């Protein structure tokens, strides 16, 4: 099994499970975790649309030097939620001293 296929399987099976776990009792979690959740969720939804589109390109149109298809159809399911999660984490308001 190639690294790309492994990334895709993690992205389509483990990542939704992680998001479901993270989304449990979301309102009780900190602002940073909520930001990471919504960032990752946005990334995952974007990955579903992009991955589905690129995944259905027929083989006769595959090119030896084509990197876009592999990037979107395989890696996006894992990478986009992670990137979205990090962006959401960083953009969330940091806890004020009163909350600490």
């Amino acid at each position, binding site marked *: 099994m190639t690294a790309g*296929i492994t990334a895709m*399987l993690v992205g389509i*099976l483990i990542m939704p*499970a992680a*998001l*479901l776990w993270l989304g449990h009792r979301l309102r009780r979690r900190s602002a940073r975790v909520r930001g990471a959740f919504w960032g990752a969720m946005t990334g995952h939804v974007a990955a579903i649309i992009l991955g589905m589109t690129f*995944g*259905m390109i*027929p083989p*006769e149109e595959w090119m030896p030097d084509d990197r876009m298809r592999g990037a979107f159809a395989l890696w996006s399911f894992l990478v986009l939620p992670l990137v979205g999660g990090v962006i959401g984490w960083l953009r969330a308001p940091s806890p004020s001293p009163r909350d600490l």
Partner: protein
Amino acid sequence: MSARVPPPERRRHPLTRSAFYVHLWAGVILTIALTAISITGILLNHKRGLGLMPDVDHRPTGPFASALSLAALADTALRQVQAGATAPDARTQVDRMDVRPRDGIVKVRMRDAASTEVTLDLNTGRVLHVGRRGDVFLEKLHSGEIFGRRGILLSDLAAVGLLLTLLTGYWLWLFPKMSHRKDGEA
């Protein structure tokens, strides 16, 4: 001002609780696989209308007994594909042959990236159509075969997940109705 009365404690049947979590987890985790299977399934259902599969209208030009040999027909199809290719590949092989005596044709499918299919007249060997079979890739994607022989397990997993989601969904809909009826009778 009346005091706020706390709602009575809702005790869920253990089976209902399990059904809820199986429904939730199977639904969320298998969303992508099920979406891909659904989309490819719809496309495959309409493969003729979408032009993914060549449809040749033909009548037999002679009795089936006088049809050319399979080897001769395969050779004609292979030569046709190599003559029409921009970059002929000597490694191209015949994958399968679909003989249709009622229509007097044979469909010869090649083992190449485009799954090229040549339709020939069974009796004369005349080339009726050359085109790619777009549905072959969709079928592989639908079954999970595109990811290798073990890939079909992913499709199996999604199918089992869908069954569980359907059964647990049905239970979650039915159980409150059953328990309400029981409460009404008591």
